[in-house]
């Protein structure tokens, strides 16, 4: 019967790469688990899906909708709203009359609508407002 005897150098190469890999996997496992515990749903998409769910009941799926907010133009907020509202697309100059309001602070939404040439259609919880562009 034939046996294979590996030179020390070969064994060293295999052992070093294997040990480093296992150590790396274990080390990163610990780091990432800690990170996962503190950073749950970092883009708040679960919240956004819940917040915009009533809008999806009313606005048809093929609508191109407008977007207003009391927050500075934050790509994260707009894109998470877009994900939650898809297949409706949030556009700058919508062809339909629907405009979605995404507000962080309570205010007089009737007054906001008048000031922006909109009509308030419905106020939902958590700062989600459905407007229509006034004709």
């Amino acid at each position, binding site marked *: 019967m034939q046996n294979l005897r590996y030179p020390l150098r070969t064994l060293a190469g295999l052992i070093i790469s294997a040990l480093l890999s296992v150590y790396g996997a274990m080390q990163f496992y610990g780091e990432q688990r800690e990170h996962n515990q503190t950073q749950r749903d970092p883009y708040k998409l679960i919240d956004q899906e819940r917040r915009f769910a009533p809008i999806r009941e009313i606005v048809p799926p093929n609508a191109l909708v407008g977007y207003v907010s009391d927050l500075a*133009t934050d790509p994260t907020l707009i894109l998470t709203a877009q994900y939650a509202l898809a297949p409706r697309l949030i556009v700058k100059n919508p062809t339909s009359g629907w405009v979605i309001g995404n507000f962080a602070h309570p205010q007089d939404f009737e007054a906001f609508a008048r000031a922006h040439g909109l009509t308030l259609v419905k106020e939902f919880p958590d700062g989600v407002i459905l407007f229509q562009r006034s004709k």
Partner: protein
Amino acid sequence: MLVLAISILPPCLIGYLVVRTFLPVYRSAWASQLLNLFLGAGLGAGVLSLLFFLVRLSFGPSNMVYGTAEILAIAATAGVCWFFRDRSLSGTEARPLSGWLWLLPAATVVCLLLAAALFFDTSAASPYGNWDAWSIWNLRAKLLAQPDATWKNAFSPVLNQLAGGGAAHGDYPLLVSAYIARCWSLTGSSGDVAAPIAVAGLFSLATAGVLVAGLAVLRGWTSGLTGGLVLLGTAGFLQNSAWQLADVPLSFFYLAVFVLLFLFDAGRGTGRTAVLAGLALGCAAWTKDEGMLFTPLAIAAFVAYLFFARIGGRVRALALFAAGAVVPLATVLCFKAFLAPRGASWVAWTPSVLLNNIAKPSRSLRIVNALWEEVVQLGTGIANPAVCLAAFATCLGVPRERVRQPVVLLSLAAFVAVFGGYCGMYLITPYDLDWHLGTSAGRLLMQLVPSAIFLTIAACRAAEETAIVTEEPQKPARVTRKKSKKAQAAKPGR
């Protein structure tokens, strides 16, 4: 469960049949079967993504039509596989692991369990994946999965100018989005996070599997398991696996192309392996724009290989390669030419900006620094894939005759050219360089990591090649001894 079954089983089945049709049977039976399974899983997802997109484009968003097309495709592939599969036997029998080397599969299993646990934990913490996952790939999958005409919004120009919210890149290739849309469309669960998580898991596992099985077939189990260990110990890979981005699928297709080129070379250009290499190449282009950079470079490497390698049937090999690549490449080219909106990234790209960017040496320095930092970030401290590979290469060495092999040289050249292409893109980017590097350099490096591991280990000596063969002295069996005593007793003169 239905989402998981629909997401994972059909690509594995159709992919296995496709791979089994075009690859020979390798003598190392386990490695051969694992290669068929894992290579098939990724290629199968690519094939079904193309099928879904082409059926939508030709017949509209009908689940009935698509479902029938998928069943027919699986049945046709099964038929072709049954009658026309490559029955030839290739390669050499892999030596079984012995002695302390049994620790390698044990370590691989430990790393695989850690990777799986981390994947599920990260997916539970961030079920929608990382930024690009939900803002680009899964958003477009949601649009593609629509049961009415709105599915074409997935490549609407509107996606590149979303109400001041940045671009969702309607011009990006669609492999990942179309495959997830297929799963959502068939299960009627658009937006369900299970499908993108399953697809991310499928590609991550398939990448590790192809690396292990490909190296095991080519260089033996020791090399295969070491490759798998280095990949599973790479923090960047573990992190990206659960992010649901298109970078891990792209890394799978890059790796598949290199593994298949080596297998093609190992078979001296006979057989039909070139078809799969072409298919993997086409799928890379159908996955991400970076894959479109990889495509001409890999084609050039293959053509140069055919020119320099002493193999027969060059024209046949080229024809088979083209046959594998033609459908995905034609689809991605038609998509880019006729359907994709003008890319957001091209808006600010004028010749003056380009020349101005190239002329600044400080930009090159910033690129080199950022890439170095990202290489460091790929691992955790000293446990870095670059350190592991350096240790492996130093200890086992690279045989001189292997460095001279056209397949090794040209694969390395293609790999370096892709990396150079990435650096060049950063050099001329019209975006803020620090922002561009910070948001993408780590992922771009990650795309190359599995191929880098494969190419390094495939170029090095396998442990088995360095081994000294010793003959174990044979002990006579007890039965034989008894027999011989009797025989001696029966001998006349005793």
